[in-house]
């Protein structure tokens, strides 16, 4: 894999190709900063809560999203599959396109996704022609169910939303990366560029972040830092990470040196 190959490296979701592997959230900072964040992050996909877009003319978040960026409306506020389906349909009516990120929470404290309801909603919406990107708790069985339900990607959480705690579910995300053929996009809890980089090194297809940028002192600069971290992590993954010696140095006298034939 050389630099040219890296340029050809594309993220494909539901038949759509993207060069950027950093997905941006939009809900936690000033609308006026969205454009700068998109530009500095080099993002090609931006998420937006349908409920935030359900507004009058005053300052509709949709008006602040630059042209050419793929809008990924999410169903936050949905407490079950039925509500998520209704919100997704509304997003399409509002002209938000065919992409939808399913978020179903029935817990307002931790905002953990409800995996079983998410599978149900995915199945219904995929049949209706949506490009479905479900947010989920990293569980292999659920991920397989999502594949069968027609998901276009799987978005496991790294740690609770807004916590900035990084890859608390690292080992389980690795299992999804190893076993699931769809793009695995790490979502929620990524608080630093270094954590985004690590997720990409593991083989994640993309990383999504919102709070980490929203709470940064200089949002555009942090967006730029994430861009570079995600790119670095991706390159490291593509180049094949060097071996890591788990214990001491490599022994010169091998254990099997006595074998002669």
């Amino acid at each position, binding site marked *: 894999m050389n630099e040219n190959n890296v340029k050809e490296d594309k993220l494909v979701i539901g038949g759509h190709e993207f060069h950027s592997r950093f997905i941006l959230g939009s*809900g*936690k*900072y*000033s*609308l006026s900063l969205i454009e700068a964040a998109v530009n500095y992050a080099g993002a090609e996909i931006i998420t937006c*809560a*349908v*409920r*935030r877009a*359900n*507004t*009058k003319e*005053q*300052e509709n978040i949709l008006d602040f999203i630059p042209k050419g960026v793929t809008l990924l409306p999410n169903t936050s*506020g*949905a*407490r079950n599959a039925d*509500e998520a389906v*209704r*919100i997704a349909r*509304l997003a399409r009516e509002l002209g938000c396109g065919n992409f939808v990120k399913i978020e179903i*929470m*029935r*817990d*307002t*404290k*931790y*905002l953990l996704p409800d995996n079983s309801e998410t599978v149900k909603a995915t199945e219904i919406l995929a049949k209706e022609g949506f490009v479905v990107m479900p947010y989920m708790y990293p569980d292999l069985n659920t991920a397989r169910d999502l594949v069968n339900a027609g998901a276009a990607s799987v978005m496991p959480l790294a740690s609770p939303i*807004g*916590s*900035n705690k990084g890859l608390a579910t690292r080992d389980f995300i690795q299992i999804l990366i190893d076993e699931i053929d769809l793009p695995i996009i790490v979502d929620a809890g990524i608080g630093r560029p270094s954590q985004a980089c690590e997720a990409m090194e593991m083989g994640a297809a993309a990383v999504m972040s*919102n*709070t980490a940028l*929203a*709470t940064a002192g200089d949002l555009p600069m942090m967006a730029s830092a994430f861009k570079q971290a995600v790119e670095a992590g991706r390159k490291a993954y593509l180049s094949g990470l060097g071996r890591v010696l788990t214990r001491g140095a490599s022994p010169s006298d091998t254990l099997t040196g006595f074998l002669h034939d």
Partner: protein
Amino acid sequence: MENQFFVDSESLSPKALEKKHQLETDPTSRTNHMEYMEGQEQIHSDIFEKVMTEVKNYDPSKYTGLDVERALKKETIGIEELKAFLSPSAEPFLEKMAERARLETQKHFGNTVYLFTPLYIANYCENYCVYCGFNCYNHIRRMKLSMEQVEHEMKVIADSGMEEILILTGESKGMSDVKYIGEACKLARKYFRMVGIEIYPVNVEDYRYLHECGVDYVTVFQETYDSDKYETLHLAGHKRVFPYRFDAQERALMGGMRGVAGSALLGLSDFRKDALASALHMYFLQRKYPHAEISLSCPRLRPIINNGKINPQDVGERQLCQILCAYRMFLPFAGITVSSRESKSFRDGIVKICATKISAGVSTGIGDHESKYTGKEGDAEGDEQFEINDSRSFSQMYEDMSGEGLQPVLNDYLYV
């Protein structure tokens, strides 16, 4: 010095005055405030006992500075830590508490602040709550808006740009029944994205009906969680029943509402205990109904018409800030609303630490939005529940919040 709540009006008949004085001076003339009145539904919740037991055993003076320091170092703030943060020993740590509260707020809400406005549609009241401007013995201009007037008020407010509304009434089932409120809520759905109510507590079926009319959020203030004190402040009317009011939020959730809010009215009793109870009330509700969106307010006593001396006693702005920081650390995900009872400077400061929602363009009177918003003289207007402090208009508030580096959010809600 205690507030002097009792004020006689010259327009009361001798018989009414006699009754009023008897209620004020003779406890035996009052009903048992722990006994349900006819028609009041009992849901036999366990939350009441849980909250009351914690509050009863809470002695704020037992907590030391060391307890507060330890609490600040803990990653997860539990009930013990909350108690330390609400104690007098936490006052020297206010800046540190604010720093942590700010971080928690940012994690959950980023740099956003939600704006809303209240709309009072009637001020008739059947209760005698001694500190309230709407109380049935207070001589004020009473009014109930017709549906045409309600719609007119809503148009005026919606034209200002506001998208979230909180509909309020005095507590009179006779003058403003559930059907009347429901009709107003249906109208509100036409003009606003999000509709909440702050009305007298009702039964589960009534909350279900109001939810079907387009309401998803219910606010009820317990006023004080000190049952003995409550008895001396709410002398007559259905509001006198302490446990029925306590269970209102839970009945609302059972009726299908998405979110509930509550609080004590700070200054009526021991504010540290009342703050603890307020937080625990919402905490236990969310534990039992994990999908529920919970929110806390923090009203302090304000002067009312015919009694300008009412004040929040020992709850100063520092104490209020302490309480709100404690709420935020204990319930990082909860909404915190700061009303126009508080000053501009306090609200501008507190939204940067822990408040997530503020009102703007506020009137606590009836039918006076047009005159207040446009300067045009209105027809008859009903008097206000209390004096507000921060009278900024919606557009001024929007501008000011943006100026503070915050993103004002007018709506983040869908009725599904």
